[in-house]
């Protein structure tokens, strides 16, 4: 389950912002770690591409939902870590509730 190229329909990828917020609820991480944790959390069924990951992180940053800061690595280049903000926690709760509503609606429609 190194690198999931399994099916990643738009429905899944479309929720990348919420997935990243959920990941950051467990602690601050840099890009690759976030991708790996999402992959692990889905048993390797979904792992976001770098492009998807960073376009989401930029969006989240613009919304004030995550905050980047530089790590203090001394070897191999400093990493940019992302921290979830209070607004980001609210956003995660809200979009999770929204998903629950959408899910029960789709269950009746599909």
């Amino acid at each position, binding site marked *: 389950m190194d690198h999931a190229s399994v099916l990643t329909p738009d429905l899944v990828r479309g929720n990348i912002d919420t997935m990243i917020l959920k990941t950051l609820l467990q602690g601050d991480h*840099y890009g690759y770690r976030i991708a790996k944790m999402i992959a692990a959390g889905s048993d390797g069924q979904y792992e*976001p*591409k*770098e492009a998807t990951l*960073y376009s989401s992180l930029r969006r989240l940053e613009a919304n004030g939902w995550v905050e980047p800061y530089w790590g203090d690595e001394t070897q191999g280049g400093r990493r940019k870590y992302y921290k979830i903000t209070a607004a980001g926690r609210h956003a995660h709760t809200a979009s999770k509730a929204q998903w629950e509503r959408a899910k029960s609606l789709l269950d009746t429609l599909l």
Partner: protein
Amino acid sequence: MTHRIDTLLDELFAPYQGLAPAQELRAEIRLDLIERFQDLLATGVEESAALDTVRKSVGNLQEILSDLQEEHMADASRPAPAPAPPGLTQFNASVLRNADLRGVMVEQGNFKASQLRGADFTDAVLRGASFKASDLTDAIFDGADLTGADLASANAKNGSFKGTNLTYARLSHAALRNADLSSAVLVGTQIKFADLRGALFDGNTLTGVAFDGANLTGASFRGTSLTHVSFRHVSRRSVGSMAFGGTTMDRLTYTLLTANGGRPSGDITIL
């Protein structure tokens, strides 16, 4: 080992060279790719297979960089760098037939796909403006400044460009049949694959102009001075029917003009 990743990044980011935000993204992604590569090698994956997996993990960079690139392109300096002035600049898809626009100043104006048949832009300042794919039939640009303007694929049949400044303007694929470009300033102007049948270039000084693939049948270059003008893929028949007289050109231009075997008639002085 990191050089394998840098080579891959060079390739992926080649279209975005000079785009500062892309360099930031590249630095961030670089460390991710190195770590991914090392992780794969550590689990015993063979190097070329690991690199292939790393490459696939990047995804579509266009998704994230296209917006940045557009912003950047808008700021990038052009041959005629001029910030859009305050006021109206957006006229795309407008209907301005026979409009009186003499002397207007609309630098960087957007007139794309507009209907400007018969419009009068005499002495207007239209540096960097775009008239791409517009209908400019019978339009008048006499004395106007069209430096760096884009008239690609415009229809300017019978258009009047007397004394117009067309420095670094793009007129490729334009319809300029019977257009009058006498005394226009043509420096670095691109007029490739244009329809220039019967067009007039009399009394001009043409420098670095590209007429490649244009139809120049019956076009007139009387009293014109041509330097480093390119006529590649202009048909033999076109060359034979062009009107010269009191024309001067450098050796290079003459060679390009006659490269297809065309024999220009009239009085040409080769400098």
